[in-house]
């Protein structure tokens, strides 16, 4: 439900993984197979010669050193920036606004309902239920529209369809209060808290 760039994750992870895999296999082959070592010597020697030639050909006019170093350093800094941006994209998309609408009435102004309303209402309604070990409510921005995510932790053995039906009733009540049907995702989850909690044996 959050805005994690999943396709980008797959592409970048695939590229990085493939590169590391190739390097690792090459190292193992270098250590194990003598003919690979011979090929590596000739190939890497020619590559390093051409790289040295490139550095020789790109000297600063009238000064020692190659400007290729500057370019490389800039490229590395750019790569670091891109990686930071990539990491910052993970798990984005939480928002704090349940509803933002223009008031059609006579008073000028518009309406904003914060996410705390939904959070407090649902949490209070679910608080003293014996069959739930916990509940969290969060609001996500899905393509510019708010959506509710309700995570419920039932105790072991509780039928999930009953929990889902009651969550649906609560959500209906909430949308009646707010006056707008917000898309809702209910996640009935198991976690450390439910695993070690006591099962209701008598019902």
């Amino acid at each position, binding site marked *: 439900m959050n805005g994690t760039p*999943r396709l980008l994750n797959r592409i*970048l*992870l695939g590229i*990085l993984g493939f590169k590391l895999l190739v390097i690792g296999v090459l190292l193992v082959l270098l250590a194990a197979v003598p003919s690979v070592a011979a090929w590596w010597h000739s190939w890497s020697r020619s590559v390093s010669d051409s790289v040295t030639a490139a550095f020789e050909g790109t000297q600063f006019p009238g000064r020692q050193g190659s400007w290729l*170093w500057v370019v490389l350093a800039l490229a*590395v800094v750019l790569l670091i920036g891109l990686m930071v941006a990539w990491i910052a994209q993970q798990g984005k998309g939480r928002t704090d606004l349940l509803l933002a609408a223009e008031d059609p009435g006579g008073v000028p102004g518009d309406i904003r309902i914060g996410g705390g309303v939904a959070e407090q209402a649902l949490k209070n309604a*679910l608080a003293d239920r014996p069959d739930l070990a916990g509940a969290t409510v969060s609001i996500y921005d899905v393509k510019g529209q708010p959506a509710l995510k309700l995570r419920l932790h039932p105790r072991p053995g509780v039928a999930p369809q009953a929990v889902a039906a009651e969550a649906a009733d609560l959500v209906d*009540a909430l949308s009646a209060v707010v006056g707008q049907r917000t898309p809702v995702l209910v996640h009935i989850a198991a976690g450390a808290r439910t695993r070690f909690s006591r099962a209701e044996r008598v019902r």
Partner: protein
Amino acid sequence: MSSVVEQQHDSAGDPAQGSSGAAHASAIDMRRVLHRETHASRAVAAVIAGSLVIVLCLYALLESAVRAIGQPPWLIDPQTAAERIVALPSGLPPLLLGAAGAVTAAVGLFFFLCAVLPGRRARHLLSDRRIAVVVDDEVIAAALARSARLAANVTQEQVMVVVSRRQVVVNVRPTSGVPVSENAILQAVEEELEAMGPSPMPQVTINLSTSGVVGA
């Protein structure tokens, strides 16, 4: 149903029913949201990979900077590193080289498989007409274990249920000397599963163990 639910209905139901601001309700594609909920996002692997690349880049920058201002290198200076790499199988014990290669290849394989595999999470969907519901398989297993336990009349520890995408395996260890009907358990579990209606719907298999539990 608890009384809390009813209260919510009473206090909130009537006045808002008329003001239907719900015209532009679900423009969100719920199918896409559900697909994202049941598949891994690979966020953790992405953060690890990104940090790895950042650390490597910072180290390269450090060594080049140290060389540029003419200081002695921290671990190895770039020129020497390049020469060592060119001369590779010599200069390092083959065992160390092979081990380093194996570790690198394993890390690479981990990232590559993360990217290539479908990444399904152990979750099922429940069909509800109003809201989208995702259930962890562990919750389903606990509910099925409860109904199997009641049908077989055994304790909690004698039932183990494994739920996968298309299969439910119920393992029951009966109490010694007390007969247990496999059909009764199967019926109870299937009824519970039908009432739940997870999609995709799994097949139920019951395993009655031949050895019983004493004194349960």
